[in-house]
């Protein structure tokens, strides 16, 4: 363990990381966001979902540094009297969970199909890639909307709210697997004719074993880059769906839901209800994207 840690700190990636101050800032920001949302119940100043602590008379309190602000509500309160800072912490929790789970699921589907497609080839390859092509011709948000709509009708009424998060994860994953499948397939096509794969085949290993224990480790680099960038996109997709009112139910709001709620009060001058969740979304996605971009450059041997 110590050895591999040492190898990591001696390696190119760590060196490149230290060379880029912007990347370091992004990494710290992303980490802070993740920690703040993961430990929201411990660090958030209020629990916005404990109805007993809410007071409607606190509603629309502006941020604490403005004239009518109150010290206990740093970023002000929303229309229900909930602390905006706390709702952001709890809200980014939902956003992050949905984003990360969706990416993991998309990776699982994409890598499996990509490996099979690249390794087996022939009509299987053609079939999987044509499905991928068809799907690529639809915008991701449309596919997510379609799946959500179908789930809404198919699931019993009471169940939908409880299962909303799973539906959302599935919808976003289903609209994002193509990228992984294509990337993995491309790399697999290159790898499968190399000597080590032929050697494995000669000693009689099964195709599945070759795919997952020999080919897969050699194609993960680009997938990692894709996945990092995809987390950002997935969070945005989730926010878009929730903004449109088809995402998570209002009882467990994500950042997108918070922005939608605040949107109603933009004209009347209560800007903090929507601006702060919006800013939180931008910061979170931006730092993830900066990390992803850097990872792509750091892992690209041609740019070193």
């Amino acid at each position, binding site marked *: 363990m110590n050895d591999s840690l040492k190898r990591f700190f001696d390696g190119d990636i760590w060196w490149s990381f230290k060379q880029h101050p912007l990347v370091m800032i992004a990494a710290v920001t992303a980490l802070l966001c993740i920690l703040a949302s993961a430990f929201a119940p411990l660090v958030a100043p209020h629990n916005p979902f404990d*109805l*007993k602590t*809410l*007071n*409607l*008379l606190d*509603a*629309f309190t502006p941020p604490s540094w403005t004239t009518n602000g109150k010290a206990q509500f740093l970023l002000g309160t929303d*229309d*229900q*009297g909930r602390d905006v800072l706390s709702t952001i912490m709890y809200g980014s929790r939902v956003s992050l969970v949905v984003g990360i789970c969706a990416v993991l699921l998309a990776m699982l589907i994409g890598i499996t199909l990509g490996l099979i497609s690249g390794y087996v080839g022939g009509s299987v390859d053609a079939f999987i890639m044509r499905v991928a092509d068809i799907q690529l011709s639809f915008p991701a948000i449309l596919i997510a909307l379609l799946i959500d709509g179908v789930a809404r009708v198919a699931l019993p009424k009471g169940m939908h709210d409880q299962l909303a998060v799973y539906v959302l994860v599935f919808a976003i994953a289903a609209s994002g697997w193509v990228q992984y499948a294509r990337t993995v397939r491309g790399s697999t096509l290159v790898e499968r004719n190399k000597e080590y794969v032929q050697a494995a085949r000669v000693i009689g290993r099964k195709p599945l074993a070759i795919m997952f224990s020999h080919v897969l480790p050699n194609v993960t680099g680009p997938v990692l880059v894709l996945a990092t960038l995809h987390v950002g996109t997935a969070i945005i997709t989730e926010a878009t769906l929730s903004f449109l009112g088809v995402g998570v139910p*209002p*009882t467990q709001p994500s950042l997108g839901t918070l922005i939608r709620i605040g*949107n*109603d*009060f*933009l*004209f*009347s*001058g*209560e800007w903090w209800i929507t601006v702060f969740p919006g800013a939180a979304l931008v910061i979170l996605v931006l730092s993830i994207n900066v990390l992803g971009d850097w990872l792509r450059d750091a892992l690209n041997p041609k740019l070193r």
Partner: protein
Amino acid sequence: MTRSKIYCALFSALFTTVIAILPVSLEAKTLRYASQDDPQTLDPHSANLLPTNRVLSQVYEGLVMRDKNFKIIPGLAVSWSQPDPKTWRFKLRPNVKFHEGQAFTADDVVFSVERALHPLSQLKSSLQGVQTAKKVDNLTVDLIMKEPNPVLLNHLFQFRIASKEWAAKNKSEIPQNYKDREDTFSSRNTNGTGPFKVTLRQPDVKTVLVANADWWNKNSPEKGNLTQVDLLPVKSNATRAAALLSGEVDFVLDPPPQDIARLKGNPNIKIVEGVEARFQYLAFDSNRSELLYSDVKGKNPLKDVKVRQAIAHAIDVEAIKEKVMRGLAVPTGSVVPPGVQGYSKDADKRPAFDKEKAKKLLTEAGYPNGFSITLDCGNIQPAADICQAIPPMLSQVGIRATPNIVPQATFFPKIQKFDTSMYLLSWGAATYDALYNLQLLLHTSTGENTGFGDSNYGRYSNPKLDDLIKKIGVESDMKKRDGMIRDASTIITNDVALLPIHLPLVPWAMRKNVDAVFAPNNVAYFFRFKLN
């Protein structure tokens, strides 16, 4: 040279034609109207819901109508008399035609009375006390009463007349079954005698009304100049306000309360404010022996008057008025709003906001740790916002309430099937008489549309109140009647049969060039509107 002269002549000829045509095309006056709601149906008798009434009252007419000042005046009837206490005789207006050209006769009135009294109709109250209609001659109709109704004309204001011939042709003789969301010809098409006809109907997208050039009342002094109205449902609060600010729409029926100040500050926009005889209220399932949506099993806490009182004491109406309504509301405790026949100040008492008392009442009722319950609301403003504001208040006295906000199209059929434990709704006194509210909201419900308890979806039942309501219905001494209404209101308040919250003040927002006439039932009567 000659060629250019020809061009010149041609051009000027063309120009004069354009000038000649121009005044005609300028006369098209289209009002683009936005509100968050869309009519639930176009059937004249199937659903008694405000968004539906708002559109249908432009298209269909009744025997009587109301003028600018909301006084009853002759409509499709030119005069009426009461030959005996159980008969009302109406002389009908001659030479009136339906939009599709059918002549209006006594047969249409008799048919429409039958249709509005059909078991599927939710507008039986528009014919309160009427047993049947009898044709005397082509332009005379008798309404035969089963019991006297001193305020029949007020009720008749809501009664709409459709063409018998048209209904027969299109197999729409009976009302659409709204509760089961039936789709019929008459729920999508109209044929009235009114100032506007529906030329386009796309549910939740757009409804277009075009002025009826042959309207019998087109020379009325109240007549405005609109030739077309585009009704646009715009759900989002911010979008509605933005559309008005940018000039994309001319009129917004329900601007969001939080944006009134901003709209008032815009020189191109004006606000017309009015009071509607409508109140927002909470209603309870006080009928079932076990609530559908609660963790209390084996009994129904809402049957206990103490629990209902506790809820009344737990709700801070002032906070709702201040924060949700931005001051545009008057807290009330009565189911008979001011301005309605029978209103009395003594009965308009609200339980004070008192959390301690609420907790005490809950403990006395046997729920020291409270209970859980679901509050059903339609996704319409401000109801949805109030619906979110109430659960925290109830939680603070121990009642763990969860708001369940669903689209209007789901909400109404749901509560009409009594599939609710507690719901938030608003109610307008359409006839401007207390009986309408008492009878429809608080008389014991039979589960059918009988004109008694039709809108009592919590199925509150109190035999003493039922008796009183029946007596009010047939009492013709107005003074005695008002006294009985006061007694009924007091029973309701003490028993918390319903929990009135407030009367919303109604602001209409429009571009400066719109001349609107406010009607106290919060309906924009487009024939009185002008576009300058």
